[in-house]
């Protein structure tokens, strides 16, 4: 059951009715748990065991860690002033080591499952090449189906364990409630990557039906369906035409294809987010925001603070921060001090942590070299812009460039082109193809420009839908930069508000692409 299907709408409608039934009020979280597992089962029942293992490991780990925190607290409370400070310190160190071991074991199991299922074939293939055992990659054990949403729920669980370990939150005592946190259906397939402290009270609390929640949820879902079914799915054939036959197209068409894909991917992914976040809002649970109009970003760094925000935030909080103050980072800083000028060497620990984060981000997306390149390229560009900041400022001053709307627009376009160029990595089938595309973009110039080279595989109807869709998309995004759309809408008269809803609805009913066979589902569901 895909979230852009009619069956999902029916599923949500039934769930909302059951969820708010007066007799159910106290058991709302159980309804959510059943719905989540049902949703998961409908999307691949054979993979249920993995999510269960992760849930149990996370639950046990969190309980043990919490136990350690509590006993430490109690010990300090009881022994403060009784035992010498040194002994208390030693006790703290002992507990810290125990917590470290527990966390490590849980992370190794959870991450191990992810690595085995998602990266097993890649690792075996490369190890096979290295040790001259090509048959390793053929072993069926490395070709098991990857469970739905494993990349997302694994990160959520690791985040939860680390939060409990650091005492940021208490662990959940009920295994089934932990299971709900891990499997909550709106975020299981493509995120957002939720945090336990934010979600727990919402997931396990009781919610009263409010018209506002329902209306807000419906608005979001409608907008999500529009982005996915009218814009993304209409653009998909054109993007596929270009990248399935990139050998037949010039560099300019490939560059355009990358830009089209950027828009398609944004409409696809953010459309999904709006659908699931709308659905969750109907249930009184607000999910974390995952997008903040990324195409308005003026730098790649800012883009990543606006795109897939929960993933960036996860890597920032659980990888970047700990790594940049780690012993390894300090060593890197010391070495850099000897080689680079002061300003750069001060940045060295951050640069080191950033490279690791971007490498991991690439690897998280897919087990392939091209995604690792993609991650590292992102990192290199951000690091370069960080290091060259004074030089850029100097150039700007010399060229008499003033901060203004035109400069901002230029920065946005520049960022858009950069992120589009980086799309050659996820778009290509192999790393070789990615490199061939880059070569074509920079070396194969167009001799003539025709409609076929600008919009290959695009019919009149598709073009109409995409243009109208993008105009609406742009207008709404500009409005959202100033204030949330639903707030703006709530101030409009009933006729205007409902007129807009109806136009969107009829647009979807008429021009939306129905059926996952035609669209192949969501782009980010593969990660």
């Amino acid at each position, binding site marked *: 059951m895909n979230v852009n*299907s*009619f*069956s999902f709408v*029916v599923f949500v409608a039934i769930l909302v009715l059951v969820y708010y039934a007066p007799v159910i009020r106290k058991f709302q979280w159980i309804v959510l748990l059943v719905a989540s597992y049902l949703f998961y089962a409908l999307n691949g029942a054979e993979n249920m065991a993995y999510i269960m293992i992760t849930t149990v490991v996370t639950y046990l780990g969190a309980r043990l860690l919490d136990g350690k925190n509590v006993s430490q607290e109690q010990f300090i409370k009881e022994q403060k002033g009784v035992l010498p400070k040194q002994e208390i310190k030693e006790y703290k160190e002992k507990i810290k080591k125990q917590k470290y071991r527990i966390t490590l074991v849980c992370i190794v199991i959870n991450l191990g499952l992810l690595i085995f299922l998602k990266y097993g074939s890649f690792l075996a293939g490369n190890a096979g090449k290295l040790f001259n055992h090509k048959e390793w990659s053929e072993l069926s054990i490395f070709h098991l189906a990857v469970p739905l949403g494993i990349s997302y729920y694994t990160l959520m669980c690791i985040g939860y364990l680390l939060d409990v370990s650091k005492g940021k939150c208490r662990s959940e005592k009920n295994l089934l409630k932990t299971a709900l946190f891990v499997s909550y259906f709106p975020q299981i397939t493509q995120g957002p990557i939720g945090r336990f402290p934010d979600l727990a009270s919402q997931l396990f609390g009781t919610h009263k*039906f*409010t*018209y506002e929640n*329902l209306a807000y949820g419906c608005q979001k879902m409608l907008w999500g369906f529009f982005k996915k079914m009218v814009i993304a799915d209409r653009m998909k054939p054109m993007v596929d035409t270009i990248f399935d036959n990139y050998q037949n197209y010039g560099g300019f068409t490939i560059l355009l294809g990358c830009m089209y894909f950027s828009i398609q991917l944004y409409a696809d992914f953010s459309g999904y987010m709006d659908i699931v976040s709308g659905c969750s809002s109907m249930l009184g649970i607000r999910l974390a925001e995952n997008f903040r109009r990324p195409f308005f970003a003026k730098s790649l760094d800012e883009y990543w603070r606006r795109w897939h925000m929960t993933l960036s935030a996860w890597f920032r909080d659980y990888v970047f921060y700990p790594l940049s103050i780690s012993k390894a980072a300090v060593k890197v800083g010391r070495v850099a001090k000897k080689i680079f000028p002061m300003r750069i060497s001060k940045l060295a620990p951050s640069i080191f942590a950033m490279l690791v984060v971007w490498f991991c981000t690439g690897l998280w997306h897919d087990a392939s070299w091209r995604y690792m390149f993609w991650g590292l390229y992102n990192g290199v560009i951000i690091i370069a812009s960080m290091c060259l900041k004074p030089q850029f400022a100097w150039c700007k001053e010399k060229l008499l460039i003033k901060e203004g709307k035109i400069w901002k627009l230029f920065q946005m376009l520049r960022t858009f082109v950069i992120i589009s160029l980086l799309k050659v990595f996820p778009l290509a089938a192999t790393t070789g193809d990615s490199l061939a595309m880059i070569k074509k973009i920079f070396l194969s110039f167009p001799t003539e420009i025709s409609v076929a080279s600008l919009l290959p595989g695009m019919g*009149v*109807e598709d073009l*109409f839908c995409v243009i109208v869709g993008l105009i609406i998309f742009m207008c709404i995004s500009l409005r959202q930069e100033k204030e949330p759309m639903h707030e703006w809408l709530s101030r409009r008269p009933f006729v205007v508000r*409902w007129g807009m809803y*109806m136009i969107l*609805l*009829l647009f979807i*009913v*008429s*021009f939306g692409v*129905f*059926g*996952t066979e035609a669209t192949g589902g969501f782009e980010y569901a593969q990660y």
Partner: protein
Amino acid sequence: MHNIRKIGIRILLILAVLFLYQRGVEYLYRPHNETITFINKERREYDGEIETLICGTSTAQRGIDPEIIDKKMETVSFNTASSLQPLDGTYELIKDVTRNNPVETVILGIAPDIMMKREVDTKYKSRLYDRLQSPVSKFKYQLRGCSVDEWPYMMFYSARVEDYFAGESIRENINVKQSEEYKAGQIIESNYKAKGMIANKKKLKGEQPDVLTQGESEFSADKVKAHNLESLVEIAEYCSDNQIELILVYIPLPGKKIQSYGDITTIHDYFTEFAKKHDALFWDFNYHKELKTLFTNDKFEDTKHLNRNGAEVFSEQLADMYYRYHTGENIEEDFLDTCPYYVASEAVGEKDE
């Protein structure tokens, strides 16, 4: 309570807008000469009179002429068969027609390939859905035969429009639908007044080896999907409960096709047994004594369907057999124990006519 009223009003508003919009889209985009519109119109004209109902797939739709059956039997029959008609839909269709017609006989053209299909394409389901006239039947079929994701396609004509920018055909539609002749019912489609039958004059040409050898999956009882068999049993039981005579008919296939078909005997045996078990009749015209002489290649439009000429011959035969059966004659004598194309002396080493 206030919330419920507020939500109720809004749902009604959405439904009203959707309804009006769909009507508008249908007016603009549904071809003024679309066959199904005229078939439904004609069926409504016969409401309360239909005694013999013809169902099944395209072979029945193109092969059985109700007019010929009516002349011979002095009955009123109607052909509701459609391309790749799914059996669960056929069941709903029979109930839909019998709801307001004194149906006495159902002639069901059997299609072995349908029996083995897990799922029929949405397009074909919609052809059956359009033939259902009562909203109850439509809803029941939606629940029973369509996945939830197929509902928008069934309910919203706008989801079926393939080209929203077909300006020429929209103009033509509006012009015709606005004309006085159309409103007075003077503009008709060529199949109107054919009682649901769609015939083609085309003749099967040449050997068409690629078509002939493009073998459908070979029929066997274990390949029959349980839900299809259940639907067929339901049809038989419904007919039996309502004193309706059910005749399963295997419509003739061209000789070339039969020769390439390794499983015609299996099909024959399977349906013979089914008919015996469920108190139905089974007339396999591919076992007809005169098959080779009556249904030569020029009686077919392609390797599956009879053409107009062939349909006339076949319907005559069917009506004659129906008449003789009811007058108590032994019609078993019209059939051989084996398919004429498989009679050993002719089949061995000689596959061409």
